[in-house]
């Protein structure tokens, strides 16, 4: 739950000027401390990643290299117990898109409306949006199980997971959007547009949203990253998304190379998204 709290909320580089006028001996000691620290931590973080990448290129005999594990991602399941990875990837990407859209449709108009018309509700609204942070997914899923039993009467597709994912994404999307909304003068913009004859839909879609597109993009990337890494709810509601498929593939055949190639691919994808995110964030702060 909280692991994602920090995502995209890279602390703003404040103050902390490079210490000037420091004694030479202390600066030398500090630099030595920094290099040692970075090397040790770097090894701790990079060695498991490297091992995973190495295993994703493992050949049939120990020590050999091969791209077979990568080709296996698109191959049919290796055993009857293993799920189809490709369809799991597809459903997860669709879920990511769907969750992003629903989060935006649910949050953006409501937040603008609250800012303009019902200020007094905003504290309660913030509380509700941040509430999922204190309810771990493993707890939420217990309460969601009966609700999903009901949903399954009408629709069996794993796409239905988006209902729960929107709730999980709420705190992160809320904070991203609140930052963007706080940076613009919503009242003046909307009054100007309204006095020129725009209706509320026009105000939101064509006036306010374009002024906070970076915050919207930020919220979408955070929601998408969350969906791509989600395991708990899908697993316990017996749906198969990417993480669940990886889990069962590993269980069906221990040390299958395809598990490592899929993990590496998923991680690389998440990394690219977060790098985009950090650039969006930086530009917003400067601009």
């Amino acid at each position, binding site marked *: 739950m909280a*692991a994602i709290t920090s995502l995209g909320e890279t602390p703003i580089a404040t103050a902390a000027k490079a210490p000037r006028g420091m004694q030479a001996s202390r600066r030398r000691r500090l630099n030595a401390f920094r290099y040692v620290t970075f090397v040790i*931590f770097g090894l701790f973080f990079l060695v*498991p990643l490297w091992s995973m990448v190495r295993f994703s290129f493992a050949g049939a005999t120990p020590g050999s290299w091969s791209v077979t594990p990568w080709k296996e991602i698109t191959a049919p399941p290796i055993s009857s117990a293993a799920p189809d990875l490709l369809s799991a990837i597809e459903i997860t990407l669709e879920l990511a898109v769907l969750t992003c859209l629903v989060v935006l449709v649910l949050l953006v108009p409501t937040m603008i409306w609250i800012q303009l018309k019902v200020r007094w509700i905003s504290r309660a609204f913030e509380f509700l949006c941040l509430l999922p942070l204190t309810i771990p997914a493993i707890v939420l899923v217990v309460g969601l199980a009966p609700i999903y039993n009901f949903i399954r009467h009408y629709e069996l597709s794993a796409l239905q997971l988006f209902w729960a994912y929107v709730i999980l994404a709420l705190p992160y999307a809320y904070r991203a959007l609140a930052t963007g909304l706080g940076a613009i003068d919503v009242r003046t913009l909307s009054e100007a547009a309204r006095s020129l004859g725009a209706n509320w839909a026009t105000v939101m879609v064509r006036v306010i949203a374009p002024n906070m597109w970076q915050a919207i993009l930020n919220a979408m990337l955070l929601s998408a990253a969350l969906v791509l890494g989600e395991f*708990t709810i899908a697993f316990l509601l017996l749906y198969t998304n990417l993480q669940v498929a990886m889990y069962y593939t590993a269980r069906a055949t221990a040390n299958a190379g395809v598990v490592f190639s899929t993990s590496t691919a998923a991680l690389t994808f998440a990394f690219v998204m977060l790098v985009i995110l950090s650039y969006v964030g930086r530009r917003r702060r400067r601009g």
Partner: protein
Amino acid sequence: MAVASTTQTGARPVRAGRRLSVPAWVGTVPFLGYVGVFLLLPTAIVIWGSVRNSTGFQFSNLKLLGNSVVRSYFVGSVELAALSAAIGALLGAILAYAIASGNPDGGVRRFSLAGSGVLAQFGGVALAFAFSATIGPVGYVTQATWFYDFPQGILPIYVYFQIPLMVLVFLPAVDGLRVQWREAAESLGGSTWHYWRYVGGPLLAPAFTGALLLLFANGLSAFATIQAWENQIAYTVPQQISVAISSEVGTANPSEADVLALGMVVMVAIIMTGYALLQRRAARWLR
């Protein structure tokens, strides 16, 4: 007739007036409805399910918390969360200091922050695979015999995502330490030890404790990683919740899941309240 016509003429302005005075909070109803069904209702189901059984309302289910087996899951969860939070917080604080003492616009800092954002997020199934590829039974670096022992086998995996989270949460506090305070301590004849003991330490203590609590909550609610690491034996509450709600082996016990989930909610809610209070305390000096 006459009565009817007067009512009609009388009603029209009233109806027009009423249309204008639709309360503005109605605009938030879609959001409230969604959150009500997918966040508040599941929480209510958990609470209701933990105090009720087939015969009606009673607290006997809660007696389950006194059961020694059930208690062992809580002990396991707290042990793992506390150890991983303590180690993660300590190492993360050291890393945060190493980052903060460098160039605020430097590449090392930017790289470390982007990396922390990704790695704090990189929990879940793939992380357990990465570690099994590193130190697992066929590990690339070493084959640790204790890899499947609890808690020492899972501990490094938890620490792996706790350290980056600590860096993200704690770095703003370390950045808030002013060079002038250090210089003031030095000009009064204080040594490095004096500075940390009487100035830096007390200033960072609330932020550190708050971050420690956040990491603890994070460790408590993590499920995917430990499930992918070991799926036969339940050591922690989330694992046991999973056993209790899935009927895979015919042992589904919904009310046990509800009671365990309630225990989790109460613990996480207390911790997160403490975190919020400490954050407020920490903000007093470091802004």
